[in-house]
């Protein structure tokens, strides 16, 4: 059980941890000071949302989704289309379209995005629907493990190619940009970054809360069981394909929401952000932070990106080495990630202290359990 959330033995511990995290998160902009840093962190919080979703699919469900860029991108494009329309008077074409296409009126595909709520709904629901269809197709045929990984990777590639190939509708490789006003505010006015940070923070807290509920629910246990032994779950009368599809849909919805929040933060949505390479990196955040613990996923997204920004400007050539080395070391030698390592140190420390005090506290959390893989 301890594999789910650190200290789930006592639900109050998890709640207090969550509250402390929420408080810390909302106080963070005050500590950061510079608006550039606040903007930076807002972006990382969006990545953390994707990571939490991925962790549900991969850490708990054993599905290595290497194409989350597709869902992140769908969310980002949905909101990006809305923001593009916000820059121009009602009913007129977004600026790239009036420049690069011969459309005279808004294409049907774009019309729903005039409404904020429609855009937000599309951002979350469309990824879930697509993930649902894809999941049913793939899991019903018992395609899993590395095959699933490579197929999802292919979906991210298709997404990027379709965006690039339809310049007149999507602005192609350059992507949607020019969001100078976002939801009525000047994006570059003082305070807007802080506002965006708070939206992202609330988004992350929602995603985390949902994910914690999910993994602790009966369904969550079924998901973990499916990860560890799909056949036994099947023999017990459940349909593993359905279980996995739902997990994949949850991950997709969270990525979509993250994308919708990220679009105004980035100020640009372009195909390169959602191609298969960024998608693999998303998985690597979760791996580094520690799959199978939701806090680990958050930690991984924040830490890896923090290192990236710190190192890549001062020593761009060393960054690829460092990044590669980080993935290799963590995955080959500490599969529990940073969270797993912290937890086993903590357990070791606690038992050492307990030993010295002469008490017998054998009920401490065990060191990292080997994570099963459904290959």
């Amino acid at each position, binding site marked *: 059980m301890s594999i789910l959330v650190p200290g789930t033995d006592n639900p109050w511990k998890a709640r207090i941890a969550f509250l402390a995290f929420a408080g810390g998160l909302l106080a963070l902009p005050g500590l950061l000071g510079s608006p550039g840093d606040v903007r930076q962190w807002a972006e990382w919080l969006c990545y953390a949302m994707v990571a939490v979703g991925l962790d549900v699919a991969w850490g708990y469900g054993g599905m290595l989704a290497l194409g989350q860029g597709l869902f992140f991108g769908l969310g980002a494009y949905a909101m990006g289309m809305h923001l593009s329309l916000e820059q121009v008077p009602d009913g007129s074409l977004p600026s790239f379209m009036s420049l690069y296409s011969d459309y005279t009126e808004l294409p049907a595909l774009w019309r729903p995005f005039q409404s904020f709520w429609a855009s937000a709904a599309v951002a979350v629901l469309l990824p879930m629907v697509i993930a649902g269809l894809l999941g049913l197709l793939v899991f019903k045929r018992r395609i899993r*493990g590395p095959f699933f990984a490579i197929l999802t*990777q292919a979906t991210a*590639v298709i997404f990027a190619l379709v965006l690039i190939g339809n310049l007149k509708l999507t602005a192609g490789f350059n992507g949607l940009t020019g969001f100078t006003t976002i939801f009525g505010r000047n994006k570059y006015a003082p305070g807007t970054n802080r506002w965006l940070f708070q939206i992202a923070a609330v988004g992350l807290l929602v995603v985390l809360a949902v994910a914690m509920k999910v993994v602790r629910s009966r369904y969550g246990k079924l998901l973990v069981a499916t990860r560890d032994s799909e056949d036994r779950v099947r023999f017990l009368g459940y349909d593993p394909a359905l279980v996995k599809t739902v997990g994949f849909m949850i991950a997709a919805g969270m990525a979509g929401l993250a994308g919708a929040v990220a679009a105004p933060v980035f100020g640009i949505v372009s195909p390169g952000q959602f191609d298969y390479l960024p998608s693999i990196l998303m998985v690597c955040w979760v*791996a580094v932070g520690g799959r199978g613990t939701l806090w680990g996923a958050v930690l991984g997204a924040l830490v890896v990106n923090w290192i990236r920004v710190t190192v890549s400007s001062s020593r761009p*050539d060393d960054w690829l080495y460092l990044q590669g080395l980080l993935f290799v070391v963590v995955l*080959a030698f500490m599969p529990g990630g940073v969270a797993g390592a912290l937890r086993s140190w903590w357990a070791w420390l606690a038992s050492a202290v307990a030993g010295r005090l002469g008490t017998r506290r054998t009920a401490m959390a065990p060191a990292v359990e080997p994570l099963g893989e459904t*290959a």
Partner: protein
Amino acid sequence: METTLSNLYIGVTLASILLLVGLGLTFTFGQMGVINMAHGEFIMAGAYVPYVLQTSVLSGARGGAVLVAFPLAFLVAGVMGLVLERVLLRRMYGRPLDTLLVTFGVSLMLQQAAKDLFSANNKDVVTPTYLRGQWDLFGVTLTHTRLFVLLVVVLTMVGVWVFMSRLAAGRRMRAVMQNRELAAVSGLPTSRVDATTFFLGSGLAGIAGVAVSLIGPIGTATGTAYILSAFLVVIVGGLGKLRGVVLAALLLGTLNAFVEHATSSTLGRAAVFAFVILFLQFRPNGIVSFRTRGLAV
């Protein structure tokens, strides 16, 4: 008619490239189940070999350099694969998804290493004089370089087939891959067989590298350009099935050529990827497969 012929020709030459980059994977992925994302960087390493030869020891014989490059690139990439297997992957058997991500990390480091060694600029391999020229056949221009690549593929295939079915080492490899426990109790050194398999699969990437250096750019991104398609070919073909991989490469190559001709290059590529996903709905085990329960990976 002429366009159909020329599309077929383009499809076949495209298939030859897919086949060449996928062939090594039938060993490492197909036989051993290891998804080696650094396979692309072994191709890259192979592609740099003729460049290095042409600009150093064999600068006087640039045509010969390309021929010498084949065995040398096989060794270079093979040894890289061997090191990777012995140092990292050996610890990770049974964790295919972790292996995928670890080798992705390795591929990032190899790309940066190539950038440090050769600079970020693309390098050029001078086409040997014996490969310059073309034949016109029924209105289709067959270039000597592409035909040469085709020849390399055929020779490599023959070599692989002979090894797998005629040589003791190849039979040992198949034995270990099909039933590791049984092979082990029969006294086969499974760990050494693993190493050999990985060496061969990676070495084939080196050969592919030399071939693609004749037709495309040689740079730090050379491997990334081919890696995903290579995996798809192997999956569609059916794991470790030589016949299946040939068919899959031909299928995807011609599909790409025809869709591209009808629409655009970008959509042609998207169509191939979408086709693969749909195809696996109907044959989840690939074109050529054993009859098994579930998907044995």
